[in-house]
């Protein structure tokens, strides 16, 4: 009979939960029955050790990359014991809850307050490129850069709002705003970062992938660009088109500047990707993770003249 068999771990998943009172990553281990477990800390990592339970799912790591948890690894230490290791990017408080049912769910709630802390007091200016009669790049079928970058910028704004960071957009609607006005806004608002959102345009429709431009000869901008690009590629798994220094941001003294080219809109496939709301969300998460990583490094926190 089903209930007499050894419990099996059938699935592990995680989700960022955000409400007025709470902000945490919820990691859930699902099994066909209840088993004895203990949860503890190993360095920053959180480890659940289960006894009398076997893995029904493949062992090994599951990528998460939500800014707090990098991955969750299931390991069978003995034939009848399983270990779930949650690899953390930052230390976090946690609590555990189990619920009966089919499947049995063991949930570990991890505090995301560290991420909120990293961004506290920072003012981020997001610049969705183009707008109005300046449509930007055009997809081979029908998408326009000015529209898709706004969708990604809105998702990104949302993520900063969740952690109560101060965040501004250079445009909320389909407006045409000269570039120098956008840069001036960064100065007037005393922004800590300027994040441009664009797509790449190429004559060759086969060219695709993610690239990040940064303010030439600014160490901070280069560091930020590297982190944003790496985190984006971890999320989107697209081709790395590299980092490029640009002189056009030179007027923004003292403010790190990056311009993200999420994909190449002129690529048939990547235009297709830009139709998916899930894709906009993932792109925003990648950029957000890059920025929080930047502030987690000492360089990002030092107030150095750029």
């Amino acid at each position, binding site marked *: *009979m*089903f209930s007499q*068999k050894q419990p*099996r771990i*059938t*699935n*592990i*998943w995680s989700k960022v939960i955000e409400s007025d009172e709470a902000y945490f990553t919820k990691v859930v281990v*699902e099994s*066909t029955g209840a088993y004895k477990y203990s949860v503890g800390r190993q360095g920053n990592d959180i480890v659940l050790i289960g006894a009398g339970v076997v893995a*029904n*799912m*493949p062992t090994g790591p*599951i990528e998460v990359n939500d800014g707090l948890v990098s991955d969750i690894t299931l390991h069978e230490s003995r034939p009848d014991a399983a270990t779930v290791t949650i690899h953390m990017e930052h230390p976090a408080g946690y609590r555990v809850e189990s619920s009966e*049912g*089919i*499947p049995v769910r063991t949930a570990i709630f991890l505090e995301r307050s560290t991420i909120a802390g990293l961004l506290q007091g920072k003012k981020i200016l997001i610049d969705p490129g183009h707008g109005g009669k300046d449509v930007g790049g055009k997809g*081979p*079928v*029908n998408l326009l850069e000015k529209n898709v970058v706004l969708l990604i910028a809105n998702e990104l704004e949302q993520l900063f709002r969740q952690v109560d960071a101060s965040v501004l957009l250079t445009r909320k609607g389909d407006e045409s705003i000269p570039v120098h006005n956008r840069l001036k806004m960064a100065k007037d608002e005393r922004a800590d970062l300027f994040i441009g959102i664009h797509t790449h345009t190429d004559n060759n429709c*086969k060219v695709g992938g993610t690239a990040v431009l940064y303010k030439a000869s600014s160490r901070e901008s280069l560091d930020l660009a590297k982190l944003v690009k790496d985190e984006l590629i971890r999320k*989107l*798994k697209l081709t790395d088109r590299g980092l490029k220094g640009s002189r056009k941001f030179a007027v923004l003294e003292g403010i790190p500047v990056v311009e993200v080219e999420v994909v190449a809109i002129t690529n*048939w*496939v990547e*235009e*297709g*990707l830009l*139709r*998916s709301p*899930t*894709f906009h969300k*993932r792109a925003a998460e990648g950029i957000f993770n890059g920025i929080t990583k930047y502030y987690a490094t000492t360089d990002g926190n030092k107030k150095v003249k750029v």
Partner: protein
Amino acid sequence: MIVGKIPIRTHVITEKDDIVDVVFKYTGEIAGPGDVIAVAETVVAITQGRAILPETVRPGTLAKFLCRFPGKDGSLATPQAMHLAITETGVPRIFLGVAAAAAGKIAGRKGDFYRVAGRHLTLIDDVAGTMWPFQRHIILGPKTPQEVVDRIKDATGAEAVVTDVNDIGNVDILAASNGIDGKALIKELEDNPFGNDDQQTPIVVLKMAE
């Protein structure tokens, strides 16, 4: 009566896998007679080699033209996906679909393209960027889903369905083994126990009361 829905995480399934072997491997100890094994249509199609890299498709002029019409939200918005749809269905039926869609638009109706050109075209998943390592692939609908559920039943002793479920609660049962009424399960799958495409849980075991 269903007493639990167990999402089953698997390895990354590719065209090297046999879908019945996969289902048996991951549900053999979990599902028994009377239970229902629900399998997502996308992975059935992937095991049948029906995940296509758009770079390998050469869309013709017709596909490049037609991909502008069936609705920006839906599938078939890339010329490559439209080209595959034309190959699956044939040019005449695609044209009938386009004509129906044009007439439907005048009448303020949606969905006429797929009603006429073929329901199976709604199973074509255009590039979506979500299901690693198939984030750049176009995934066609599965072939012979009835044969698949019959083989799963033979191998596991449990009932089986092949289903298409999306996040907004649209459920389609493509095939059901002979011991169950597939339509009756639609309500049970509306909450999408498969989760998102990237959660690697293409199988759900519906446990029945013993």
